[in-house]
């Protein structure tokens, strides 16, 4: 229907949703919920698993948590292609740096590299990344790198389209110096809540617990979410 004759000024909507507006035709979006929380001795990273093109769910069990180095991981949101390319570049640069310096790179360096790529190519990218991990200098640390390419070290970070629905929840439940189990259950609870309200987030919850001794990958199946349709 054409409402132009009623409106004082001309307003036309192109029919695209806010999230998919900047995607190229056919491009996949990781409209998403991602988060990372440091705890005593490491970091917990978590993400949902829905990849969508418009309303079609292209992949309902995707892995949005990618490994950049032994103890450095990142959560990806935005365009799947862009974030995969960024992750590949950073992984490559980090492995070369590790060979040159003879030591594992720090999370700060990984975040800095990611941010450099995001900032310098900001016109051509749509990528929101959270870099988190463990290193001997800072212990567990989390860096949030949103769309424009800024890089901020934070006590915890959430991102993706679903994160807007859980700011209040995470703000009220987060404390400094959580234990590993507390951090893990907070991540699972928050992402479940986001998945319940955000159409672009769903599927399963993938988590990685990164500590000095190694990484533990887990997932929560879609019918065992702490909160959501199955739990009501």
């Amino acid at each position: 229907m054409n409402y132009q004759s009623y409106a004082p000024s001309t307003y036309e909507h192109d029919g695209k949703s806010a999230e998919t507006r900047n995607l190229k035709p056919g491009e996949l979006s990781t409209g998403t919920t991602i988060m990372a929380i440091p705890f005593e001795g490491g970091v917990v990273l978590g993400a949902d698993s829905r990849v969508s093109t418009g309303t079609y769910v292209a992949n309902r069990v995707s892995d949005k948590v990618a490994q950049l180095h032994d103890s450095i991981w990142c959560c990806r949101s935005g365009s799947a292609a862009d974030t995969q390319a960024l992750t590949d570049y950073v992984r490559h640069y980090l492995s070369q740096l590790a060979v040159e310096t003879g030591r594992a790179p720090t999370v700060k360096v990984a975040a800095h590299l990611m941010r450099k790529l995001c900032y310098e190519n900001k016109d051509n990218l749509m990528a929101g990344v959270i870099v988190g991990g463990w290193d001997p200098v800072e212990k567990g640390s989390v860096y949030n790198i949103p769309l424009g390419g800024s890089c901020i070290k934070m006590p915890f970070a959430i991102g993706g389209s679903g994160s807007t629905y859980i700011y209040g929840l995470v703000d009220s439940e987060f404390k400094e110096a959580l234990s590993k189990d507390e951090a893990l259950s907070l991540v699972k609870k928050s992402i479940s809540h986001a998945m319940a309200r955000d159409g672009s987030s769903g599927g399963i919850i993938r988590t990685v617990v990164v500590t000095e001794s190694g990484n533990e990958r887990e997932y929560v199946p879609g019918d065992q979410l702490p909160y959501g349709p199955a739990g009501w």
Partner: protein
Amino acid sequence: MASSGSGYDLSSSTFSPDGRIFQIEYASKAVENAGTALGVKCRDGVVLCVEKPMLNKMLLPNTSRRIYTVDTNSGVAITGFVSDGRQVVSRAREEASNYEETYGTKIPPTTLADRIAAYVHYFTLHGSLRPFGTSSLIASYDTETKEHSLRMVEPSGVTYEYFGCAAGKGRQPAKTELEKLSLNKPDAEDNMTAREGVKQLARIIHLLHEEGKDKPFELEMSWLCEESGWEHKGVPRDYIKEAVEWAKKAIEDAEEDDESEDEDEEMQD
């Protein structure tokens, strides 16, 4: 000991039949003709020191540097051809700055030394370039591991890590003196502090310097230690003065002890 190159020494891209590259060795000779540079890695920091002969009475004192800051956590002392040294320092600064711009963290000491060494080495490979006539002493602090270290890059492009190193005219006697210092005790607590290091280096330089034979000289000293907040800074001038006074007295006392020992021997006859 002048060895004849007999034709194999005209280019740095030529080996001699006995496997030497003479141009690199001649470059080292250029370093050996210049003022002594010393470095010590102490328990709580690194101290660098260069003896600057005053070539011209009209020179303004305390100008014409030999020690440069490459980044807040690194400093380089050069000896040999000063102009060559400045080029090396300029490159070191670029490397440190680029590293921080790319990786967001201060360049680690091994990486800095490796990059400087690679640069110096490059000039030994090309027929159209000559090797650098400088040795660079690098004092550096690793912001990640919180460890300080001392390295030296020679004209051939090799780099080693040291407790104490010397380059330039007086390096042989200097090395002998450095070996006597407590730098490498099994228990780290027994090693010298940076403050002690400043005094000892002043003493060694003055010991090596022969009045009347060598030109008058200036002493340039810098340190990178706990007291300087782990930043490369010049040793405060008044402390250098204090150290030089102590050094002169220590040398006199040592000479008196030697003389009195001689006297005792005579009396026993």
